[in-house]
């Protein structure tokens, strides 16, 4: 099952490079992948918990390298997200003029990198799959981007490569932090060592800091975020969908999967730093988002801002917050993908995303107006959408850490700031909607065609996904609960 999910996009990419019709092959390949993730999701035995569908191949005994796949609830949620966004990104790909095959192959490779990283239980492949995804990112922005695309492509690549280098250092130190005899790249082994307290607290502090910075750069943790808005503004819409929606979640996934459960002491030691930085994401970047004058930059910054909430859920280190963070990763991936997709469609028609040039589009493109409105409501966390359910869990999880009735402490203050962020995101999202879709229609745009009929299906798919989780969060929590329950110490639940 997992083998299929991991290799289907890779094989599809190869088929396309070898001459299979690009668009149809990509659609079928990603559609099958998405179906397979759903099947795996429903076949996962939540009662038993743990990693299931485990498959292992030995690559090199002396290097202790094993290609090891497995999935628990967190993996499955991320896999569904990745496959669904991949399918929609492929669907939303407009006709490509230069090297269409390479474009589709790059999209599929980008997604395979993310999928492979999520499904790997071996640290080496976990890392390597993510590195694999950086190359298509670079090509997608550098070749098919808009604006100052070369600079943007280089900036994002160098920035992410530096981040992954710090991450690699952290992972290697983690590997070496346990006695020689029990060293392993196998996450399951590391987890049991971590629970047994085999990693010394001092070492935990150093490693956690490296992992936090390394993963943090990949997730655009403040102040390492400035690659993101520029890259997303320059990237073609399908690439922005996949990167902001899926690949960026790799860093958060790493924190939830590796840093938090293996290094609880380190996490406690550095929680103040994480809280300060994530407040920067929410308040500082939120304010920067308000000041944006173009939709693509605004969406880029808003996706940086929303990472703050996921970090907050992770920082709380309790069941409520971590489950909230996991659901929010899914929710944010869906809503930002939909927003980038629609922004791409608008740019294709008008050639501009500057707010003051647009206006009244809901009259001219009613379906696009409807879809963008729904995505806006999802992004600002209104009930019914997964974002709301997740944010509620994050707020409740974070607010209760160290709470007493004497006053506000660090976690409570940060939660208050995060709650204010909810006001900030309403300000910029509704302003964008007001300036693009409401008001009197601009004469120039009187004849824009609405979203093509065939593009309405992926829009509905994305909306349906977020509504399902938003109205029935227990569908996701069923598999997520057993993932986090063992790793959270009894006392901090």
């Amino acid at each position, binding site marked *: 099952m997992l083998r299929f999910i991991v290799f289907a996009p890779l094989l599809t990419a190869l088929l396309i490079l070898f001459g299979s019709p690009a668009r149809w092959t990509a659609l079928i390949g990603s559609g099958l992948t998405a179906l397979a993730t759903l099947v795996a999701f429903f076949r996962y035995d939540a009662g038993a918990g743990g990693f299931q569908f485990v498959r292992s191949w030995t690559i090199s005994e002396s290097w202790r390298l094993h290609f090891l796949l497995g999935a628990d609830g967190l993996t499955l949620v991320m896999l569904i997200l990745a496959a669904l966004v991949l399918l929609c990104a492929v669907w939303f790909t407009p006709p490509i003029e230069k090297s269409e095959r390479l474009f589709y192959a790059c999209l599929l490779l980008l997604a395979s990198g993310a999928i492979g990283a999520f499904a790997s239980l071996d640290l080496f492949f976990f890392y390597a799959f993510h590195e694999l995804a950086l190359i298509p990112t670079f090509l997608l922005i550098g070749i098919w981007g808009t604006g100052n695309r070369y600079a943007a492509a280089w900036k994002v690549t*160098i920035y992410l490569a530096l981040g992954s280098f710090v991450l690699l250092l952290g992972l290697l130190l983690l590997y070496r932090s346990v006695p020689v005899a029990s060293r392993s790249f196998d996450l399951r082994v590391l987890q049991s060592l971590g629970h047994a307290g085999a990693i010394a607290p001092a070492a935990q502090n150093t490693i956690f800091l490296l992992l936090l910075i390394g993963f943090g750069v990949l997730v655009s943790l403040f102040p390492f975020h400035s690659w993101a808005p520029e890259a997303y503004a320059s990237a073609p819409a399908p690439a922005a969908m996949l990167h902001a929606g899926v690949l960026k979640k790799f860093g958060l996934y790493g924190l939830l999967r590796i840093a938090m459960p293996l290094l609880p002491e380190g996490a406690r030691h550095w929680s103040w730093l994480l809280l300060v930085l994530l407040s920067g994401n929410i308040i500082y970047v939120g304010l920067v988002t308000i000041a944006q004058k173009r939709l693509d930059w605004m969406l880029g910054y808003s996706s940086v801002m929303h990472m703050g909430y996921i970090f907050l859920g992770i920082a709380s280190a309790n069941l409520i917050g971590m489950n909230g963070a996991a659901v929010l990763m899914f929710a944010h991936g869906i809503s930002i993908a939909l927003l980038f997709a629609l922004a791409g469609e608008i740019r294709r028609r008008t050639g501009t995303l500057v707010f003051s040039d647009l206006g009244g589009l809901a009259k001219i493109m009613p379906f696009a107006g409807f879809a963008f409105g729904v995505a806006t409501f999802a992004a600002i966390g209104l009930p019914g959408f997964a974002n709301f359910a997740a944010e509620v869990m994050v707020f409740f999880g974070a607010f209760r850490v160290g709470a007493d009735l004497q006053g506000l402490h660090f976690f409570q203050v940060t939660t208050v700031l995060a709650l204010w962020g909810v006001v900030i995101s309403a*300000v910029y999202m509704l302003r964008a909607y007001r300036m693009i879709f409401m008001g*009197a229609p601009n004469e120039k745009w009187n004849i824009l065609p609405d979203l093509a009929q065939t593009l309405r299906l992926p829009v509905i798919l994305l909306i349906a996904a977020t509504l399902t989780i938003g109205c029935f969060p227990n569908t996701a929590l069923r598999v997520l609960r057993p993932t986090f329950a063992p790793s959270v110490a009894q006392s901090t639940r």
Partner: protein
Amino acid sequence: MTSSLPWIALLLPLASAIVILTITRPLRSVSALVSVAAVVGSFLCAVVIFYRETSAAASFSWIDLGPFFQVPLALTLDPLSRSMLFMVTGIGMLIHLYSLGYMRDDEGKSRYFAGLSLFMFAMLGIVLANNFVMMFIFWELVGVSSYLLIGHWFERPAAADAAKKAFITNRIGDFGFMLGILMVWVATGSLGFVGIAAKMGSLTNHPGYLTAAALLVFCGAVGKSAQFPLHVWLPDAMEGPTPVSALIHAATMVAAGVYMLVRTGFLIDASPDALHVIAWIGTITALLAALMATQQDDIKRVLAYSTLSQLGYMVMAVGLASGEAAMFHLFTHAAFKALLFLGSGSIIYMLHHEQNIWRMGQLWKRLPLTCLTFLIGTLALIGFPGSSGFFSKDAILALAYEKNHTIFALGAFTALLTAFYMTRLVVVVFFGNKPRTQIAARSGESPAIMVVPLLVLSIPAAFGGFGFFARRFLTLPNESHPGAIVPLIALAALVIGVGSAALIYRNRESEPIHLALFRERFYLDEFYSFLIAATQGLLASCSAFIDRWILDGAIVRGLSGGTWSAGFVLRLLQVGNLQAYGFLFGLGVIGLIYFAIFH
């Protein structure tokens, strides 16, 4: 007895919204009928629930995280929610019917009725919620439907701006509301109203914490019920279609804040300090809004400010620790204010969307039934003896007289102002020597589908205050009446207000009094714009500057080795160099790993 009727009442409007959105959107009249059918269904359920005292079956687990965090969706059915259910569906039904006429030729009729259905769903959710998170869910949904309906005519910049303003102002209130919920939850470990009430002991031991939590919960009501200082969105919300103003921005949604305060009375009443603040916020709102209302020229804006003012009375009653008095006024106000708004809608509809009262005049000859019902509504609003508003306002004033004389004096003065501005409105709109414009002169009476709801609403507006009638629905406040002094003062205020306005405005062609401070709403909107520009705007620009020129410009580019000239980048982009770069990077990684494993 338990039954699924409450769930049906709640979910019918949701089903209607979904059906309209997915199926009947192109068929505008069918959409309207679907929505009306749903609300009629909900009303019938509400009637059965009201008379048979059913309680809700089954609850549904929304979030289940084991013993640590459970959010069920379950319904509360007590006398309070049963009567509220009855009132909301009843008035909602009349306004749906009225909308059939008012929105008959609107292009976005399907969207409009879907919005109304969504609103009914959300409002019933607030009424029936049995825990804080569930209430917050529907609280936000009500905000969404209000946004959609205020912005119904979204091509009009004023409507689009008003919708945004309403939503964001409410979000500010909700910021406090959510924080209050979190504080209560941390202290009691419970989200359900019953559960919290049982564990109030853990809060009352910490009066400071309790006051903070109660006031934060109150913040939600300040936003939703448009209390000072978050009242600025409600007058602008009048940009929406008039039936929406009647249903959402007068009778039901804005009253949800008061309902929530009564529902969580166990929390609010436990903190005397919080009660004190709440009473004063209500008093200030009542007074300021009444002052503003005296100088407005738009018929809907006069009514909007009067709504603010009356909500102020209700909040005042909550602050004086009498939820009963607040609910009593909420009910009578719902009837007479819906009546007044629908009456104004009838005029606006027949005058082709003219809203300036100085362009009307002598309309009693043209719209006699509208005039008659509007007069009934006005008498109730100004508290004419025997009308519904007389009893409910008197209950609040008597309460204030008992507990706080300053608040009583301000409340009585507000009553005088109410009589003044409503008389001004009626005199200018319906009487005078002649119609002031051609359009007013040629107008006729509205169609039956719009007049019938007016007639039906007149009945509770006129008689709803009598104890034998009101007691069927509500627990009335205790009759510890401090003698005849309160009604006498109220009557004096009424006579002075009506008399002076009648003298000043009789047969006037234009406004004789000019008080810029009231007309310009104490310049609060301007002050807020300035405040937003000076804080959020300035901070945002500064942050954006820092991000672009310092964090990104200097640090990142400086670290990444200075300038990348375009030619150099282009050369590297050639596939050969990319491979070289990837190869080197891969080599580095493998080297590191080798070192880590074998050394």
